[in-house]
């Protein structure tokens, strides 16, 4: 069977110098890193520094990441730690400013490990959806993307872009969703004994083909 590359194989390839595998890892996990970092409400510049540091650290640690299946957890934890450091650093530099809102902050305001665990679970589901979408024929995927765009694309525009009658959009949507539900990625997710578990099992961690 022609399996899509797994996180495992992408990590191994990136370790061996395959820049394409690295880019695929970035595509796969950038939304997770962003989701964790945004919780900390850092300035755009500080948040960008955290993101950059997380990926620089991953480059350093590619070689000693013992179990690549732990990569999502590693990224989320590293992002949280770096974001916390940025928050602390901001508190120090604004501590002479009596108006500094950071001063009022108490540790309880900051995202904790439970929030990060929640992000990890949600991200695993989203990665399954993303991989499932990548399995769909282009036309079907485009339809779902246009329907769920923000703001939504009007039906007549969908009709002219995808060359399907307005009256068929509803039934085609239903077929596309059925097909998505039946993709390898989505079936692997729902079949997994611990579907949202960060450890996951074989086959539950497919990523889209590059």
């Amino acid at each position: 069977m022609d399996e899509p590359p797994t996180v495992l194989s992408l990590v191994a390839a990136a370790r061996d110098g395959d820049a394409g595998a690295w880019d695929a890892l970035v595509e796969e996990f950038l939304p997770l890193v962003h989701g964790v970092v945004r919780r900390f409400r850092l300035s755009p510049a500080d948040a960008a520094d955290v993101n950059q540091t997380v990926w620089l650290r991953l480059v350093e640690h590619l070689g000693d990441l013992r179990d690549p299946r732990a990569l999502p957890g590693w990224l989320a934890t590293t992002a949280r730690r770096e974001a916390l450091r940025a928050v602390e650093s901001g508190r120090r530099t604004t501590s002479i400013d009596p108006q500094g809102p950071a001063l009022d902050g108490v540790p309880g305001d900051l995202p904790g490990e439970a929030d990060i665990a929640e992000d990890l679970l949600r991200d695993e589901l989203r990665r399954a959806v993303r991989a499932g979408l990548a399995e769909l024929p282009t036309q079907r995927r485009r339809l779902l993307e246009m329907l769920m765009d923000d703001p939504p694309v009007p039906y007549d525009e969908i009709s002219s872009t995808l060359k399907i009658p307005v009256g068929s959009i509803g039934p085609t949507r239903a077929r596309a969703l059925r097909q998505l539900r039946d993709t390898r990625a989505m079936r692997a997710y729902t079949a997994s004994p611990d579907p949202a578990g960060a450890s996951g099992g074989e086959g539950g961690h497919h990523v889209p083909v590059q």
Partner: protein
Amino acid sequence: MSPFSESPFGDDELEGLVGETLAADREVPDGWREAARAAYAWRNVDEELLALTFDSEREPAAAVRGDDEARTLEFSGDGLTLEVELTGGRVLGQVTGAGEVVLEWADGRTASAIADGSGFFSLDTPLADGGPVRFCVRRGGARLVTEWVVP
């Protein structure tokens, strides 16, 4: 744990997930992808990594200190210790054994200094708002690099 573990996703629920997934991808700020991809250029299998073993900012007391106090970092590994003190406009440091110390920014800029006989060195360079940095120590023919830190 998962509300979906028994039954397959309903149409509306699945569609909502598609929307949520697309939104999560869309919300990644400009520049983050490029920065993440570019990080790979720093991959180097031959360099010895000096781990961050002390960071004054991560000490419990750091939160109550004033901003005039320098941040102290210590890196070590492979029998070498590098201590640096970061202030607004300069970096003071000491490395075990003399050698060249190069400060590297992730965007490719560098600044270098030669450590004296006692291992002391200083770099007159502002670090604020410059993004992640690391230190590189040349010892004999070897290059040792520290973990990345955001000053």
